[in-house]
């Protein structure tokens, strides 16, 4: 059975090796073997020459960018135009070259080009910024053919920063087909958007927000035509629009004794609110002009039936929008949020966070102005959509009201200044030593797993941060959002388990932000072992 031990161990190898194996294609070719001394000498000489030439021009030829430093997200706008949102997380400036490849997602067949060049706009992406670039493929490809492809046929648009030999390649998926099926509609109005908000939305975009479609968010066919309309509208409006960026993490520590709902035990109050980020609002409407622009959301967790003690459905309650600070040149620059153009001057009173890179605003008023009507509309939408696991009464509304009031007054945002990716005993986080306290026991779960307690302390010995980690491999505890099957659970304090952590030193206080705090409690943690 030693082979099975090896097989088990192999099961846990890093994802990057699997990705690499999956992405390997037939382009790798074995060099045919050669014989003969002369041939060998010539070959070696050629290799040496190539090596010297490559070394001399390496800086020019090879891309200095790391392939993982970019995230691309593409949307087809019609007439051959593709809008690509590019997030350049590296510190290096990037310029895409005017050459593309288009490959069928199914079958990986490359689409032949017509001969015309693709036309790029905004192809320069400075380091550390997010830009929306457009690529006009109308002269390069038979767009009519692409548009008539099966709606589930996706394509990879492959872009490069130098060329397809020496440069990096990045791909983003595009669907050129029209979206079917059409939304299924039922009789009668199911919910309505806040009339005050609706008044502020440009007339040509209103039908999208007035539509009370209740289908699956991601598959909502109207989202695609809205993106097209919104981007055309923004091009015409003449304002300088700064796109939404991924924000910081909302920190949600609750003070002792806070009670949102007295039918829930005090130690479980923290399970009633959580946070997430999304490209949609509670009604499935896009928050930005593209499918990759997100807002941070504070959610309330609610019962599924009368008297239920679980809190297993959630409602979006407060919305936060973040922007790259460097992109805002004046208070006249504008944001496009939930169909509305708002200047940064107008947003100023709603600013809740600012650092060197990001500015965040609490923009709930751009989503609704009347809490009661909003809550009733969300319930109406859920029930119309066939969700029977929602329950509403006055006690539930009181809970929602209290949570909204609390976070309006006590919103705390933590800057994601440092991802801790390699924690080992005796290392330091923000200058503070990390101490391993040793294996302390087992996390109660469906599988016993050893855990290790780490603490971060000041030189005086005051404990700043403490967490328990399940080691993925010896001395390597990956604390980022890339969750894997063999992931970990962290405990920030008794009763609060999290799956993500960031740390920041602020006035000698290590603050910890978390996602999914509401999902776990001591003794109920389900380790992610499928």
């Amino acid at each position, binding site marked *: *059975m*030693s*082979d*099975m*031990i*090896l*097989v*088990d*161990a*192999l*099961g*846990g*190898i*890093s*994802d990057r*090796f*699997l*990705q*690499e*194996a*999956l992405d*390997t*294609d*037939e382009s*790798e*070719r*074995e060099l045919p073997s050669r014989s003969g001394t002369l041939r060998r000498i010539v070959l070696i000489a050629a290799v040496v020459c190539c090596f010297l030439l490559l070394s001399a021009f390496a800086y020019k030829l090879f891309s200095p960018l790391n392939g993982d430093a970019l995230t691309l*997200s593409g949307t087809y706008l019609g007439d051959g135009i593709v809008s690509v949102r590019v997030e350049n997380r590296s510190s290096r400036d990037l310029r895409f070259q005017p050459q593309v490849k288009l490959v069928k997602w199914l079958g990986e067949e490359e689409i032949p080009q017509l001969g015309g060049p693709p036309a790029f706009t905004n192809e320069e992406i400075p380091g550390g910024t997010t830009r929306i670039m457009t690529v006009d493929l109308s002269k390069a490809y038979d767009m009519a053919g692409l548009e008539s492809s099966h709606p*589930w046929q*996706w394509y990879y648009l492959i872009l490069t920063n130098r060329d397809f030999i020496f440069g990096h390649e990045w791909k983003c*998926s595009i*669907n050129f087909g029209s979206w079917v099926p059409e939304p299924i509609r039922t009789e009668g109005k199911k919910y309505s958007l806040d009339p005050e908000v609706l008044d502020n939305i440009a007339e040509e975009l209103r039908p999208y927000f007035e539509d009370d479609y209740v289908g*699956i*968010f*991601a*598959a909502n066919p109207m989202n695609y035509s809205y993106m097209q309309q919104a981007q055309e509208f923004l091009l015409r409006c003449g304002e300088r629009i700064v796109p939404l960026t991924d924000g910081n993490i909302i920190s949600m520590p609750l003070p002792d004794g806070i009670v949102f709902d007295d039918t829930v035990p005090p130690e479980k109050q923290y399970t009633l609110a959580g946070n997430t980020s*999304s490209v949609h609002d509670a009604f499935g409407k896009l928050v930005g002009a593209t*499918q990759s622009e997100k807002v941070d959301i504070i959610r309330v967790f609610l019962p599924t039936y009368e008297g239920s003690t679980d809190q297993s459905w959630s409602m979006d309650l407060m919305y936060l929008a973040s922007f790259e600070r460097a992109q805002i040149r004046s208070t006249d620059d504008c944001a496009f949020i939930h169909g509305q153009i708002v200047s940064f001057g107008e947003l100023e009173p709603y600013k809740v966070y600012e650092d060197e890179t990001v500015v965040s605003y609490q923009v709930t008023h751009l989503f609704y102005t009347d809490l009661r009507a909003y809550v009733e509309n969300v319930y109406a939408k859920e029930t119309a959509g066939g969700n029977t696991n929602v329950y509403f009464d006055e006690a539930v509304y009181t809970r929602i009201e209290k949570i909204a009031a609390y976070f309006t007054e006590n919103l705390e945002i933590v800057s994601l200044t440092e991802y801790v990716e390699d924690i080992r005993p005796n290392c330091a986080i923000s200058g503070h030593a990390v101490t391993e306290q040793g294996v302390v026991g087992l996390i109660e779960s469906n599988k016993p797993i050893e855990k290790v307690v780490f603490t971060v302390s000041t030189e005086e010995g005051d404990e700043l941060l403490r967490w328990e980690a399940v*080691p993925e*491999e*010896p001395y*390597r505890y990956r604390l980022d*959002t*890339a*969750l*894997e*099957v063999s*992931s970990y659970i962290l405990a920030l304090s008794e009763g609060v388990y999290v*799956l993500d952590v960031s740390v920041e030193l602020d006035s000698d206080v290590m603050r910890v932000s978390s996602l*999914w705090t509401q*999902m*776990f409690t001591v003794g109920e943690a*389900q380790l*992610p072992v*499928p």
Partner: protein
Amino acid sequence: MDDKELVELYFARSEAAIEQTEKKYGPLCRTVAMNILGNRQDAEECVNEAYLGAWNTIPPQKPDPFRTYLLKIVRNRALSRFRSNTARKRDSNYAVALEELEGVLPAPSSVEEQVTAKELTALLDSFLEVLDRRSRVMFVRRYWFGDPVSLIAARLSMQPNAVSVHLLRTRKKLRSFLEKEGYVV
């Protein structure tokens, strides 16, 4: 549909999540399961179990990349079925791949005392890190995905014999790497 949207469907608890997963990754999942189990019906059931596994773990999991997350579930399910199928004849690519792995580690009693799967995984990661890309792809495709040698050869435009020899060398390297790390006596 990209993987982020797919994961969002799981978060929305939409049954379309399974449908889309099947459309996008069904063939790949079935290939991995079939490679290990060598039986179409078993492979089909295993893939369905994997979809259920994904449904039950997302949320709270928010896997990124989703593809390898799903494949890991498929592989885990397939391996546990593979183990429970001892009574039946094991007739799969994987049974052959397992035979190839015999001898890389020593006899079970000494191994189990010395090394846990978790420690071994860390060593395997280090080993794969230093391999050249081609050898690494061959090794992972053969022993993780259970691909037959002929398919690996076709993927890499090589002769099957050359792949076999390459794999043999890699296994020898692995054995000597483990010896160097003190895990093989």
